């Protein structure tokens, strides 16, 4: 029994089924406490492969956000008509359709972004974040909650991707948002900045190992923050004289 389901079954000692997670928390948990890039460690392949520059990372983040929101919304609307036994093939068909449509429109209207993302745009189909949201939330909750959850998760993934891409590009190439004008449109050309000459760059950041290094640093920082917050919370209840 799903505790979020509208049900009259009440079991003592469990959560009150009528009390749902607040909508804001549904949105925010994907951004921070259950971030797919830093906590769930899902979607690592595109995360590490596309984050060599901030612009392509941003492009893939936006594409993933779009696909995860649409797929969660559609699956949540259709969830009453989907049998448990065939839900996985149906999810796959729906997600693949969405990705194909997004790919076609990207190829038509953002050809430079399309060529810089390469294989990773069609590979969004296999991104486990989308399947995970469909399985965990969209197949059970109402469309609004599913959409909020998907938006939070997609945004969380996109932000990690963008931060990772920015750090790697700044360290490895000495630039930030290079190529934004050609990839995202002429409005973005003002964002392109050269921070320092390429002779002084830390090249390994752009190479594949650099992706792991920077991601590991980000995860370590996230964990350090979580541990710090937990310690503070626990210490609040301690008596000073007992504290060692």
């Amino acid at each position: 029994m799903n505790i979020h389901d509208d049900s009259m079954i009440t079991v003592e000692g469990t959560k009150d089924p009528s009390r749902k997670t607040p909508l804001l928390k549904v949105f925010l948990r994907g951004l921070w406490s259950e971030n797919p890039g830093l906590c769930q460690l899902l979607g690592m392949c595109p995360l590490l492969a596309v984050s060599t520059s901030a612009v392509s990372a941003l492009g893939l983040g936006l594409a993933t956000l779009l696909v995860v929101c649409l797929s969660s919304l559609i699956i949540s609307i259709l969830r009453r008509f989907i049998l448990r036994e065939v839900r996985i093939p149906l999810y796959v068909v729906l997600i693949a359709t969405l990705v194909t449509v997004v790919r076609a429109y990207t190829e038509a209207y953002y050809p430079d972004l399309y060529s810089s993302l390469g294989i990773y745009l069609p590979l969004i189909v296999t991104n486990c974040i989308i399947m995970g949201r469909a399985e965990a939330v969209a197949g059970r909750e109402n469309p609004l909650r599913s959409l909020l959850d998907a938006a939070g998760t997609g945004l969380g993934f996109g932000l990690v991707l963008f931060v990772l891409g920015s750090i790697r590009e700044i360290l490895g190439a000495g630039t930030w948002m290079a190529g934004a004008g050609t990839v995202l449109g002429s409005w973005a050309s003002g964002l392109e900045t050269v921070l320092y000459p390429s002779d002084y760059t830390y090249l390994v950041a752009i190479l594949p190992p650099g992706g792991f290094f920077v991601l590991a640093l980000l995860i370590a920082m996230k964990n350090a923050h979580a541990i710090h917050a937990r310690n503070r919370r626990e210490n609040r209840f301690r008596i000073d004289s007992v504290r060692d």
Partner: protein
Amino acid sequence: MEGMNPEDQDKKLAGADSAPVKAGTEAQAAAPAPLADAAKAAPSADDAKAGADAPAGGAAKAQGGPAEPAKTQAQDGAKAMEMAKSNPEDAANKPSKAGDRVSKKDAAQAKAKARETPAKPLKKEAKDDASKGPLGRKEHPFLRAIYAGLSLAVISAACCLIVLKADQATSAVIERNESEEIAKTVSKLLPKEAMENAKFQCHLVDDARVGRKMRLYTSEKEGIISGYVMTYSTNRGYAVPLVLIAGFTADKKVYKADIFISHETPGLGDKVDRNHGDFLDMMNGKGLEANWDVKKFGGDFDYITGSTVTSRAVVTATGDALSALNDINVQDLKPCRKR
């Protein structure tokens, strides 16, 4: 849970006798409470979840059978209450959820109400069942399979339609993008006088020196070829594919070369491309008579420190492309296929 035998259920109902009247005034609670107890009795919470979450009305099954379970259950509830009335001590001793708070009078009251409105709990049950599964409660495995197949087919067909529509809507734009891209590349790689009033034709080149399915664009002016643009690939770089594109003048000298597709190491191998310098301009105006290699290997060309491999790959590949172009008879080539 589904395989629970009737006696057991009766016991459960008897045990839950006071639960319906927990609300006291609300007789319709008579329906949910035994269900709650049944759920509690399941070996684990997960089991209960499986039973209640099954989209085909697992809850209905738990009530003892698909045929009008709610009604029979309401009767059961009433029966249970009668039992409770006949031996109230027994009912009080049962470790029920809220049993202690219930008085006999309340139970009688609830019983009366339950008799008055037997349809109410039934209605609620039915509604809940409908929300659990798409097929309602009367379902057969065969029917379920057909429904599964149908839903798959319908959704797949709809998805297919959407993909076709999207493809239709974008294919023209994609094609235009591609031809624009080619025109842009070609116009950068050929001298202006070779471009004016010229007709472009695309040919496929299959040659060991340049690779398979490479493209050769010729610009023709009144039947005389005024320039060539050819793509050519090499596997001497660090990562394949490394494909270059170059414009050649009518007398088969390099006019301008560029990188077409490159996966060379960023920061090292990409120093040869036009975003990072004018290394490729070194080859401009050179014909087949030049020594197409880097100086370290006895050739005519410089190379970039830190990207010797890529520099050499680019130079030797251009030399190979030139020699291939000299051997090629354009009339023998197949035209490019339209995508």
